[in-house]
């Protein structure tokens, strides 16, 4: 086992950490959603790379092939992608409503407005 054989996990971790950093650092709510998307995609890549088998082909039965990639992670990620876009759209809808109520999507400004105790403009 060579040290380099885990490079797929390193890429996943790199992407994951970029997503995490965007979520932590950026005050803009829309950017936080983008960061979450990056994080999410890194999890997809992790699952798919676990399911990949050396020398295998796509999991659709065909004559002449006996080695197939593991279909189970594919199924999980397939549904996760569509669920991911549904939840992303829900987050974006929330951002639109927040923008209407506060007229900003910057987290610091929103918190400042909240601590003012002024009524919202719903």
């Amino acid at each position, binding site marked *: 086992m060579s040290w380099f054989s885990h490079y797929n996990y390193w890429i996943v971790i790199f992407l994951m950490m970029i997503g995490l950093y965007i979520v932590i650092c950026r005050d803009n709510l829309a950017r936080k959603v983008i960061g979450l998307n990056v994080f999410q995609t890194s999890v997809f890549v992790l699952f798919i790379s676990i399911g990949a088998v050396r020398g295998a082909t796509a999991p659709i039965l065909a004559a002449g092939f006996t080695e197939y990639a593991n279909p189970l992670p594919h199924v999980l990620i397939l549904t996760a992608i569509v669920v*991911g876009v549904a939840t992303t759209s829900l987050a974006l809808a929330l951002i*639109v409503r927040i923008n209407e109520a506060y007229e900003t999507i910057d987290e610091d400004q929103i918190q400042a407005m909240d601590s003012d105790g002024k009524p919202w403009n719903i």
Partner: protein
Amino acid sequence: MLAATAVALLCVRGLFVASMLTGIYSLLSTALFVLLDAVDVAFTEAAVGAGITTVLFLAMLSKIPSRSERSQAFNFQPLPFLVVLLTGGILVYATQDMPEFGDPKAPANLHVAPKYIIESEKETGLPNMVTAVLASYRGYDTLGEVTVIFTAGVGVLLLLGRKRRRVLGESVEE
């Protein structure tokens, strides 16, 4: 490439550019999925990630006045960076226990997958194992996920529906 786009995503200033880069990022991950033999997943990611998500981001941006974005360049913040570096380091350390990439004897490939691969054609008559597993063996999962999508759709309609409840809004203000 994927990593480079992610880094660019970290640094760009405008939200519009960021949404476009999200689309590119999705498309690149699609190519990666094809390389890893996951054709169904790549198909979905191409349609969803590169198509719908970008359109939704643009639709959201058109609702938000551009002045609301405080121009912020990439400003380096040491404490979060340290936290991220530490977490990443621990995760990299943990990968030493993970199976090698593409190892046919990895635990994930030994448990139920061989059963699916060998018996799915016999039991369901479908050559596409992904569909067979999705619809038949894991039907409960899929039902739950469709429910989640339905619920998210209802949530968006409730949040952005055209009829605004003026009465409720005013009672909150008082």
